[in-house]
């Protein structure tokens, strides 16, 4: 496979994690402009684990998901009672705080005759695990999609489970959900933690793909994009945010005609698409209709 194609596909896979993370919160009715914070925490955590501590990749990724999820739970507690706009701005404030903290974060270790590690705003280079351990770019791509598939499978199960129903109920009306006996606070924190862990996992993969992270990468723009993917793709199914990512990175960035003007097209698309489909391309109604199609006439083929 062409290197460029592998690169684009890897990017799509990794960005899908943070898009899914923002989408999960959308499901519970909250807009977060701050999922990039957990992406950043995951990226730094995983990078430090492999490059500085010599951990294996698997352990580093697990660690990145765990610490990002933990951070998300801890932020979830004080912001729990905030709603809508207030929640969105609180997450934005938190994410900027994290980014600015990373600008102050220096932790350098002499490795192989060179200082390696996060160096404040100058960034963190040399997260070279996949090169040192001969992980091919295709192999890494396979790892990304394996994890993504696992996450999606998790979401599919979630949609069918009581938990998924509970999340959507809270998203519709959390007072009503509480009256129906749902432990809204606990469920919301669970959702925040899961979303944080997902973003953290994506961040861990991202750090190893690019070998380089710096605080500026994790500014509000990243969070805004991850949110936009879910809204463009649709809120009806976990495939929605993926569709959003594919439209932006796969279509707009890869098609030469848009080169350079991609963001203008994307910005306009976000603004205009919402006129026609306020809940995205794959909204609940469409998903329901497609679902019924399959139930009524089971596919003959695969």
């Amino acid at each position, binding site marked *: 496979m062409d*290197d460029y194609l592998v690169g684009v596909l890897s990017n799509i896979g990794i960005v899908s994690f943070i898009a899914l993370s923002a989408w999960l919160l959308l499901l519970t009715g909250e807009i977060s402009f701050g999922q990039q914070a957990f992406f950043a925490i995951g990226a730094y955590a995983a990078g430090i684990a492999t490059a500085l501590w010599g951990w294996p990749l698997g352990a580093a990724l697990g660690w990145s998901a765990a610490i990002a999820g933990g951070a998300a739970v801890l932020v979830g507690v004080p912001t729990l009672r905030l709603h809508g706009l207030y929640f969105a701005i609180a997450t934005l404030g938190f994410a900027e705080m994290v980014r600015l903290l990373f600008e102050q974060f220096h932790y350098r270790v002499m490795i192989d005759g060179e200082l390696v590690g996060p160096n404040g705003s100058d960034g963190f280079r040399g997260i070279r695990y996949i090169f040192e351990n001969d992980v091919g770019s295709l192999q890494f791509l396979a790892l990304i999609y394996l994890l993504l598939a696992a996450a999606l499978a998790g979401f599919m199960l979630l949609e069918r489970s009581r938990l998924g129903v509970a999340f959507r109920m809270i998203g519709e009306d959390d007072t009503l959900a509480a009256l129906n006996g749902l432990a809204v606070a606990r469920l919301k924190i669970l959702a925040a933690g899961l979303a944080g862990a997902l973003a953290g996992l994506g961040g861990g993969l991202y750090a190893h793909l690019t070998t380089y992270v710096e605080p500026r990468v994790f500014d509000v723009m990243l969070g805004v994009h991850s949110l936009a993917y879910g809204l463009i793709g649709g809120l009806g199914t976990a495939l929605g945010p993926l569709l959003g990512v594919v439209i932006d990175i796969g279509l707009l960035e890869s098609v030469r005609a848009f080169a350079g003007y991609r963001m203008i097209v994307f910005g306009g698309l976000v603004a205009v698409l919402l006129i026609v489909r306020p809940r995205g391309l794959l909204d609940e109604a469409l998903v329901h209709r497609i679902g019924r199609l399959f139930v009524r006439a089971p596919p003959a083929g695969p």
Partner: protein
Amino acid sequence: MTALRLAGALAAAAACLSAGAFAQVGAQAPQAQVKMRAKADVACRPTSTALHYDCTIRLTNARTGEPLGGVTLTVGADMPSMPMMHSVRPVAAPPEPESGSYRARLALEMHGDWALQLNLSGPLRDRVVAIVRFEPGRAESRPGG
């Protein structure tokens, strides 16, 4: 309830730093990998076309300092300060007569700091990132972490 919130806020702040704290404890000399590693020096200069730059990349073996010839090099770039917004598709950087020297022409979308991704393949597979600040009429490499 206020106390709970206060505790939560403090805990959240603590969590941000916990990666660092944990790191201090867990830091020990990692096992040295005896694999070849590339080091790159990038020098770019403007061309007559606006936003187009000619970059000369000098690759060396990071340990021995010997020039690294014979690798296939592509150069991509993205903009850390505008994440997800601007990136340049990787271009091939063919070798120059001087061993270890490669040349690429970059067509950027805007001025500012770019992170150049140097992808090495062939005898050595590696990726080196160089931060270069491109301004009208000049470009300079910046130190990184």
